[in-house]
């Protein structure tokens, strides 16, 4: 790490900034509209704010949840988005008008998040141990209650209505309309996160004891494998669109495994060591191997997996980065902080 360079970055003006605003509350989640023209920010107190992504003009604001907000998810096909909260509700909204389209009650006080199917026909919710499937109107299609503990990750498979869930004890595959899980990959450990490769071949799960466990799909008993040696928990994971690279965070380090259709066992991973403090956000740009990452001190860095020699490109927002979100076209990055700053940046790549 080049401390001199970090100091320079911390003191320099943000050369990537397009516009910024201050929300005066912990920003829990950010999301872009599909046309990349609007940005939605949700804060800890349950407020949702809508901005014009180009100009930064505040378009609308609503109190979406009585208690805290947990997540925002924009439909990939329509002008609607879903929010979940700590008030046992799932709300569906119109992006243009912020009109409440549907209010769905949950039995779980904290509704952790929802995840849309790739075509936007369905979305699933993580409501404690219960996972429900809704159609795009918000009607319940399925309720799955066989999880042993809180579901920490859900992801849909490309071009299908199959999705995977992770919780303590293993990974399950479900299919819309079928009553039970269609597959169960048993594995006794406490999970933190789940990430399914876009090509559908691998499901990776970060665990509480600082490992990543992989299940090849289709799964055969014993074909799962593990990447260990992390000196911290892997909460954040992401795949490049072509499934070639898989990134994981590990305290202040970004560790990238090359998959290219086969398991990365035995290979030495690419390691990016630009951050000094714990990384709170990291993800790939769409259709590229470029990465944006943010840490507890407020540093945001841009990296290119294939050009690791280009280092220390970034800025400092001075407070813990609470969320980073690439625009769907990959040209802009929305960043937010724990004290309520929202910044839209132009990517250097």
């Amino acid at each position, binding site marked *: 790490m080049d401390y001199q360079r970090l100091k320079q970055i911390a003191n320099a003006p943000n050369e990537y900034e397009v516009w910024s605003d201050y929300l005066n509350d*912990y920003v829990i989640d950010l999301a872009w509209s599909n046309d990349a023209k609007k940005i939605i920010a949700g804060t800890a107190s349950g407020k949702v704010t809508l901005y014009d992504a180009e100009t930064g003009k505040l378009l609308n604001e609503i109190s979406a949840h009585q208690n805290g907000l947990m997540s925002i998810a924009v439909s990939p096909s329509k002008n609607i988005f879903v929010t979940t909260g700590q008030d046992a509700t799932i709300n569906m909204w119109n992006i243009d008008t912020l009109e409440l389209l549907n209010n769905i009650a949950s039995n779980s006080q904290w509704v952790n998040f929802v995840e849309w199917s790739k075509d936007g026909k369905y979305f699933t919710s993580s409501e404690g141990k219960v996972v429900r499937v809704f159609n795009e109107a918000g009607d319940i299609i399925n309720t799955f209650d066989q999880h042993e503990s809180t579901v920490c990750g859900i992801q849909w498979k490309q071009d299908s209505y199959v999705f995977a869930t992770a919780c303590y004890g293993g990974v399950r595959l479900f299919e819309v309309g079928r009553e039970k899980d269609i597959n169960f990959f048993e594995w006794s450990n406490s999970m933190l996160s789940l990430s399914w490769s876009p090509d559908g071949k691998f499901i990776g799960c970060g665990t509480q004891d600082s490992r990543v466990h992989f299940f090849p799909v289709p799964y055969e008993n014993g074909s799962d494998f593990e990447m260990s040696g992390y000196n911290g928990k892997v909460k954040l994971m992401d795949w490049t669109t072509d499934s070639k690279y898989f990134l994981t965070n590990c305290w202040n380090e970004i560790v990238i495994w090359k998959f290219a259709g086969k398991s990365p066992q035995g290979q030495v991973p690419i390691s990016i060591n630009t951050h000094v403090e714990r990384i709170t956000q990291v993800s790939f740009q769409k259709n590229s191997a470029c990465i944006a990452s943010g840490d507890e001190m407020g540093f945001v860095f841009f990296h290119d997996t294939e050009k690791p020699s280009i280092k220390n490109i970034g800025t400092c927002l001075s407070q813990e980065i609470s969320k980073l979100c690439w625009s769907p076209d990959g040209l802009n990055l929305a960043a937010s902080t724990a004290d309520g700053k929202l910044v839209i940046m132009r990517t250097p790549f």
Partner: protein
Amino acid sequence: MMENKNSIPVTVLTGFLGSGKTTLLNKILSENHGKKIAVIENEFGEVGVDNELVIGADEEIFEMNNGCICCTVRGDLIRILDQLLKRKDKLDYIIVETTGMANPAPVAQTFWVDDEIKDKYSLDAIVTIVDAKHVWLHIDESAECKEQIAFADVILLNKTDLVSAEELVKLEKRIKSMNANAKIHKTQNADIDLEHILNIQAFDLDAKIELNPEFAVEEYPYEWMGIYDFADAEYQINMKEGPDPSFDLCFVKLADTSEAVITKAQKQAIKTFAMESKTLKAEKFINTNNTLNTLLIENESQTFYFRPHKAGIYAVFTQHGPEEFNLELTVKNTKNGVPTFENVEPTLTDEFAHNHEHDDIISSVGIEDTHELSIQKVNEWISYLLREKAIDIFRMKGILNIAGNDDRFVFQGVHMLFDAKADRKWKPGETRKNQIIFIGKNLNREELLAKYKKCIVK
């Protein structure tokens, strides 16, 4: 745990169903104390679900390292605590309620094992609520009930209005025998000032760590006490073979025979019994000044002598009952140049039953002593305890007087997890003493003492 001072304190609240946990939590949430307190309640919790600061947990227990009981932690708690950091205003306190049937260890261990939680939160104390009336239904049978009492830093004896004063004394004695270090408060309707249960800093070695191991009836290291009025004369003890090849005893001088004085002497004798003893062969003189004497019983019959260092009332404490060795005490009188020996009888006696009937008995072993200890020997001893005894030792805490070191040395542990540090300088005039307390099951007092004594610098 030595975390930064910005960390949010977490109190763990345990107790059986119906003991008063819900009553207490409702009070905490409704009371106007000006603090932001979040409650993480158990799966079957009954506290206001529409309150944004009440969060339900699903008690997901898992082993951080394969099969190691000491690394068993609560996964759901890690996730919830992580989420609770995402707020604009910081929480003042967090209370984690466990189900009645929960062992408190995984909750406590979560705050040691998990790096991120350790960074942002500090375990403040384990508070256990005991239903003074109904606890007798569980205290002998339920491992969880015993564990909850043993792990506690603070115990609320609740519903005291439902039991008689005698029953309460009996219960308090029983609880102290299991956990000599917990602070006990008697409550009705779970009515307690929050200062007694929040911000205790029981796990914080940076806080002023003070130990006050109070010893309970069942934990006396001696079996018998006799009160005597000794003259300035020579006394003789005749003993036959008994169940042990040695016999420990000590003398404590008394001002009078009031109950308070005798109680104090009993506590003094506990400390004396924890000290290095003086080994005596037959025909030797016994020390009467607060020293532990180990009489070697090597023959079918033997005699020891003593002359009180000062005439007056004494309490004599013996490791075994005197009748087990056919012990006879006589005083030597010289009449007309001819010595005669008259039997001496105690004016008062008391017996202290050992408590080894149950296999999985939970108890406390306390050591208090002023010798200097070897840091190397202490390290070896603690390593041994962590390696071999960590499953049985639930909690341990200590302040140590290390030879050649002007700093107090403090430590604490939960099962296999252990923290230690030099704490502060001994103050001028302060008695440099070692105070150690172990709480756990199947604790062997003799073995712990023997190993402790090996740490003393000769």
